[in-house]
């Protein structure tokens, strides 16, 4: 009862977060999963699509609490991990122009292209900045009227509306020295690639949290209709994930596959319509986009519409950008890991020539990548 009382007496978000990490709740859910899993007619291969989910599974040791017939497959949902070298090369080439300031988010600075990382470009004198929010790009552009400020935009459906909102603001404020190198990618296309692959074992999905806040759960409806596999949209906290796993297990045990939302605190069917409209105003799908580890996936990424060409860094800097695709390192098994065929520990270079300090492949690059998570939390042979 004590805990119940504290739930009602709390007034701050810190408590909410702490509760979703409550050890007793996690263990209680784990016990329930173990009991239910004994009724499973076959092994459950769950793909957690989002890199944030991979991170939670590893950080809280949740995979160790799961029975042997439940397997976690780490999916392609880390925007840094799946960024192909040729796009990083383009950012590098733009950043090396003398009148340019390049801005980006996340771990993008460390990711190696074939010319080096953006961090390397910075060590050579390129002006490259890391943003807390894309909105800061406005300030940078206003303070540097004689420079071309380029926002190297990355991320899935979660961050795409922020890029659209930034462009809208730049237009409103008549800022003419802010340009966009768009690398926004979509969640459903790689899922079709993975689920269509003959050797994949994936038979259930833990769908992303914050992608779904924007898109709504409706984006997974066609996937459910095609493959009839259990799908649960899950929150990020360890308790969320354990509850989602339990929901998947129960769907299989009861032979009632469906698309469910565990993260109903913030996810609904239709998502954030205003954000979706903003994205549609400024962007359209690309015919082709090369995913690191997965290869070319048609209509899996976005670009600016033609009417916004004067803001499009790919057009403005077209003459200096290299266009050819670059093959992934052959020793690295990132592609197999993303397809759920291999685990990080199956890769011969994992933890040896491939480490977070010197990543060979995409899964080791970002802290949200499967290999980086295994490495950080001590999963070794």
């Amino acid at each position: 009862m004590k805990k119940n009382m504290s739930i009602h007496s709390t007034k701050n978000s810190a408590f909410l977060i702490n509760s979703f990490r409550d050890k007793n709740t996690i263990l209680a859910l784990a016990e329930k999963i173990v009991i239910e899993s004994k009724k499973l007619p076959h092994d459950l291969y769950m793909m957690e699509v989002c890199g944030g989910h991979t991170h939670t599974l590893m950080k809280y040791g949740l995979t160790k609490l799961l029975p042997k017939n439940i397997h976690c497959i780490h999916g392609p949902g880390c925007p840094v991990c799946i960024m192909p070298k040729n796009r990083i090369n383009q950012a590098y080439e733009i950043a090396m122009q003398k009148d340019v300031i390049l801005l980006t988010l996340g771990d993008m600075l460390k990711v190696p292209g074939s010319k080096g990382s953006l961090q390397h470009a910075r060590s050579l004198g390129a002006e490259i900045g890391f943003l807390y929010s894309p909105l800061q790009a406005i300030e940078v552009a206003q303070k540097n009227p004689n420079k071309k400020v380029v926002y190297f935009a990355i991320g899935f459906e979660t961050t795409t509306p922020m890029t659209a909102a930034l462009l809208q603001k730049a237009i409103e404020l008549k800022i003419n020295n802010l340009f966009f190198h768009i690398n926004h990618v979509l969640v459903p296309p790689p899922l079709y690639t993975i689920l269509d692959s003959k050797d994949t074992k994936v038979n259930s999905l833990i769908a992303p949290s914050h992608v779904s806040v924007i898109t709504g759960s409706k984006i997974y409806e066609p996937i459910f209709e095609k493959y009839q596999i259990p799908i649960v949209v899950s929150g990020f906290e360890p308790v969320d994930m354990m509850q989602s796993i339990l929901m998947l297990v129960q769907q299989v045990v009861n032979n009632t596959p469906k698309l469910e939302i565990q993260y109903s605190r913030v996810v609904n069917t239709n998502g954030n319509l205003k954000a979706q409209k903003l994205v549609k105003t400024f962007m359209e799908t690309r015919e082709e986009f090369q995913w690191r580890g997965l290869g070319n996936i048609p209509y899996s990424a976005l670009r600016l519409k033609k009417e916004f060409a004067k803001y499009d860094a790919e057009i403005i800097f077209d003459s200096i950008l290299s266009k050819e695709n670059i093959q992934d390192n052959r020793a690295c098994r990132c592609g197999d890991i993303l397809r759920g065929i291999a685990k990080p520990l199956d890769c011969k270079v994992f933890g040896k020539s491939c480490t977070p300090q010197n990543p060979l492949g995409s899964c080791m690059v970002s802290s949200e990548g499967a290999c980086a998570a295994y490495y950080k939390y001590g999963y070794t042979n």
Partner: protein
Amino acid sequence: MCLAIPSQVISIDKSKNTATVETLGVQREASLDLMQDEIKIGEYVLLHIGYIMSKIDKEDALESLKLYQQMIENMEDEEEYVDPLYKK
């Protein structure tokens, strides 16, 4: 990259369409440009790279917590059925 943090709205600046939100004791400004619903002071929101992306229904969050709590209590009642291997 995709982590968004629950935050409480402290104040709203309608002229700039921004809100000051508090996240784990830290206050910062966030854009309301992606919000379709009106936000009120004291409400909880999800903050992601400087933008408020949605409201969090506090009642919903507390209700989920209550469910988890009940689950623990139920588990305690069913203790004899729990595989001893997984007792921690």
